[in-house]
């Protein structure tokens, strides 16, 4: 049986970075990818805007990810393509992974695992869309795959539900391909995607954005013929009488991403109820010793640059992993935050540069992030605005915070009082 120090599951941007950093830390590394080539979802993201933070350049998805793919093939990292993890087993000193690929079923031993399994798209039925089951209902990523990788024109006239980034990108993409995008509908009262995408994908193409409006039903027996949209109130309940039928041939859904953690769950990893990703410490290790998580399976990111960075941290931590007694401080959030990652701090690690990611629960202008330790103010950070669609990253020095086992670090957002510019 082949033996590895680090096995990275998933060859998208987080997996590539994780494998590269594990390799740089001299770990014998295996990178497993289910598809025929590395790159993950970026293979189909032919629009630009990737890499501004990391490379200071605006790259397309394939260009961005090619840099890491090229780097991986210049190392000794074992890459196993078209390979699926079918079964996992925990042993005393690591894990056995049973892999399926064209060569058969093989098993490898690995000391650590970095889960980089990405996320999947929420589907029509998961947002309670009813009606018939015609062809022409696509998730945005599915439509993007068909258009960009298969060269198939999936619509001539469509409605997009959800103003998440992929939905916005697809609104522009389909318009460029000659389709008529009747509008982007968003159940929330504010857009879910990045502001820059609202400007560049909708406003620049005169595509209307309808807030507090959702799609209720689809019509059409074989191919979609129309959708019914309706306004919703503050509690997101449909307001009777506001229904409107919009004739179109496709419904494109960008209604949320769900971290893919089936392998994690099989291995007994606890998931966080806010992120739907593994509960991790500041090394991005889950509550199962030796299993790390990074990228979109940890929490859904909005920028790939963060995904890569996060992957690198997790990969390095996995390479440096040694089994030992650990002491933890807890992290809690109040209802002003949507989530925070990580969820606990391993006090036996270097605490001078703890990287954290969070989202606010709602949009707050002139916001102050208050961090308290055991109820006592530790630090504050000011933001012009925090918005749920825009993830915020924090780097904290907690080395002199006096953390002890069972310390609680709490996070909350308050609106800055008395700001005359507010």
């Amino acid at each position, binding site marked *: 049986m082949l033996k590895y120090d680090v096995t990275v599951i998933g060859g998208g941007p987080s997996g590539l970075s994780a494998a590269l950093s594990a390799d740089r830390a001299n770990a014998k590394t295996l990178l497993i990818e*289910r598809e025929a080539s590395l790159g993950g979802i970026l293979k189909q993201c032919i629009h630009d805007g990737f890499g501004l933070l990391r490379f200071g350049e605006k790259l397309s998805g394939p260009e961005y990810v090619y840099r890491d793919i090229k780097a991986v093939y210049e190392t000794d990292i074992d890459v196993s393509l078209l390979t699926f993890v079918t079964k996992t087993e925990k042993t005393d000193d690591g894990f056995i992974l049973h892999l399926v690929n064209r*060569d058969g*079923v093989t098993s490898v031993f690995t000391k650590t695992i970095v889960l980089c399994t990405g996320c999947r798209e929420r589907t029509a*039925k998961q947002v309670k869309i*009813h009606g018939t*089951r015609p062809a022409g209902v696509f998730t945005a990523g*599915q439509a993007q795959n068909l258009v960009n990788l*298969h060269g*198939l024109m999936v619509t001539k006239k469509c409605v997009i539900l959800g103003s998440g980034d992929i939905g916005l990108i697809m609104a522009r993409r389909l318009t460029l391909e*000659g389709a008529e995008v009747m509008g982007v509908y968003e159940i929330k009262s504010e857009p879910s995607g990045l502001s820059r995408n609202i400007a560049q994908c909708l406003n620049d193409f005169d595509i209307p954005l309808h807030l507090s409006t959702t799609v209720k039903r689809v019509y059409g027996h074989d191919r979609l013929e129309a959708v019914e949209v309706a306004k919703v109130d503050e509690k997101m309940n449909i307001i009777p009488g506001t229904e409107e039928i919009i004739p179109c041939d496709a419904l494109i859904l960008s209604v949320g991403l769900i971290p893919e953690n089936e392998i994690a769950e099989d291995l007994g990893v606890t998931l966080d109820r806010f992120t739907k990703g593994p509960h991790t410490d500041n090394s991005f290790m889950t509550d199962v010793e030796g299993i790390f998580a990074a990228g979109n399976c940890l929490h859904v990111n909005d920028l790939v640059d963060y995904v890569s960075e996060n992957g690198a941290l997790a990969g390095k931590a996995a390479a440096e992993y040694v089994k030992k007694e650990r002491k933890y401080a807890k992290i809690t959030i109040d209802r002003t935050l949507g989530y925070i990652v990580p969820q606990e701090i391993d006090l036996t690690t270097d605490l001078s540069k703890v990287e954290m990611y969070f989202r606010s629960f709602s949009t707050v202008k002139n916001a102050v992030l208050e961090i308290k330790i055991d109820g006592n103010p530790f630090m504050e950070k000011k933001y012009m605005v925090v918005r749920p669609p825009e993830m915020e990253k924090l780097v904290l020095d907690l080395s002199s915070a006096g953390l002890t086992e069972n310390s609680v670090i709490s996070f909350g957002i308050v609106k800055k009082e008395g700001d005359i510019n507010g």
Partner: protein
Amino acid sequence: MQLKKINENLEKEFAGRVSASLEDNIIHVTGELDSWDDVIKACTMASERYSKTHVVNDIRFTGAEIPETRVPSLNDKALDGKQVDVLVIGGGITGVTVLRELSKWNLKLLLVDKEADLAYHGSGRNDGQVHCGYDLSKGNLKHEYVLKGNAMYDKVCSELGIPFKRVGQYGGTLSDSRLAIKLFCFVKKHFHGIKDMEYLSAKRLYEIDPNLNPGLKFGTLNSSVGVVSPYELTIAYGENAIMNGAEISLNTYVKDMEVFDGVINKVMTNRGDIYPKVVINAAGVFAEDVAKMAEDRFFSIHPRRGTNSITDKKTGKYVKGVTSVKYHDPNAPKNTKGGGIIHTIHDNLLLGPDAVETYEKENFETRQESINVVFNKQEKACDKIKQSDIITYFTGVRAPTFEEDFILERGRAVKNIVHLAGIQSPGLTAAPAFAIDMAELTVNILKETMEVTENTSFNPVRKPIPCLKDMPLAERDRMIKENPDYGIIVCRCEEISKGEIIDALKSPLTVPTVDGVKKRVRPGMGRCQGGFCMPQVIKIISETMGIPEAEVLKGNTEAFISFGKTKGGEIDA
């Protein structure tokens, strides 16, 4: 019931708007009503449960336009002039079971269905339960055949190579009457032939399934209840019939028939005229329409839709068999088994169905109200399952007569037709059994005019498409070494390989659509609902069938997925 009494009742309820008449042992209900519920009420009032004297609904319904039957766009002469011994109309479980039983004889057999695949209507849209019949009493066809059919399932499924499991049906009650339940069990067991009927104490109930809500007093168990994939079974029956010489023509709809002197001479379809010796009416919700074309309409079908929800496999652990809670609900609909929570053969949970009368035979729309009704009911059995666990839902339409029994008989006014109508739950359970008797009836009719010999080369065994994810790793390894495509996982949720998809496309009844592949080997049945694998499935269909990706359909002839290539897409050859 006397006709006079029926008309008195109708008069009282509808003040002269409808009336009933009896002619040739058929009760015709006529008049005009604008509410479909009233139509159902009137016909139900005129009918007697399990009677062989059927109600024919001739009420003019003015409340809405009853939609035309959906038909495929295809028109050719592929079947024109074809002479067959038996023409089966309808590719649901009823039609295919009879077709397969008939293939035990040396006969020219043809089955037609208007859809692009078998099991498109009721047989593909039910809960897959193999019933024990405990809700039925002696003295009707449903009761007779549910018992016979249930007993056949192990053998049939093993012959046809599809998974079947007797998971057992157990349920608790909120009622205090232990005696009533014990008495019910005793009567069912000793007087109605439900041999597996058992009374359960609360202790035993919770031993069987500790995840049931606390507070149930006692319950019942029927260990013969099983689960099967209804569409997989239908397809398997169809394929086995084809293996034994039968023909199946999909996208083929019957437009009309030429009947002379009580004999059907010709059946006109969109693919040409067919000349059958005997016609089998297995047309489900359209059985009345087929009977009408055959000039032998002596019953009516009143469609009744029901919606089922499927939840993520992660919830599979909560219920290991078929369960529901019995409690008194004055508003509960009468003509349904009431639904339940079912641990499906593929380890999801299925919740439902509800039951709503409808004038639309093929409206498969789902409504949130249906989901709510089912969840409100089933959370009384196990409240661990939430609507947020749902991965999909679907609607099916049942095909009952007003007498609510099966019709399994030779035509009354026409000699060469056999009606298998009114087949609703427990039709899936009963079909393997009644198919044998109906095949025999058909053969006897044929023997009136021709010699019929046994098909000595009949092979009951259909080799299944291998399901690699369930294999021991060593066997799976061996399979992949023989065919590396078995090692390429296409559907990550259900762990389906490219090789299995290609097998489905090379099976005896090829249905090269995304839905066709999905029904056979399950890519797209999982929690992402094809989000990842659908584009890959299109590619595999395109490569295997030698058709452009742009021509791959979702299902029916008009269910196109794309409008051709993107700008410049044609460069990619």
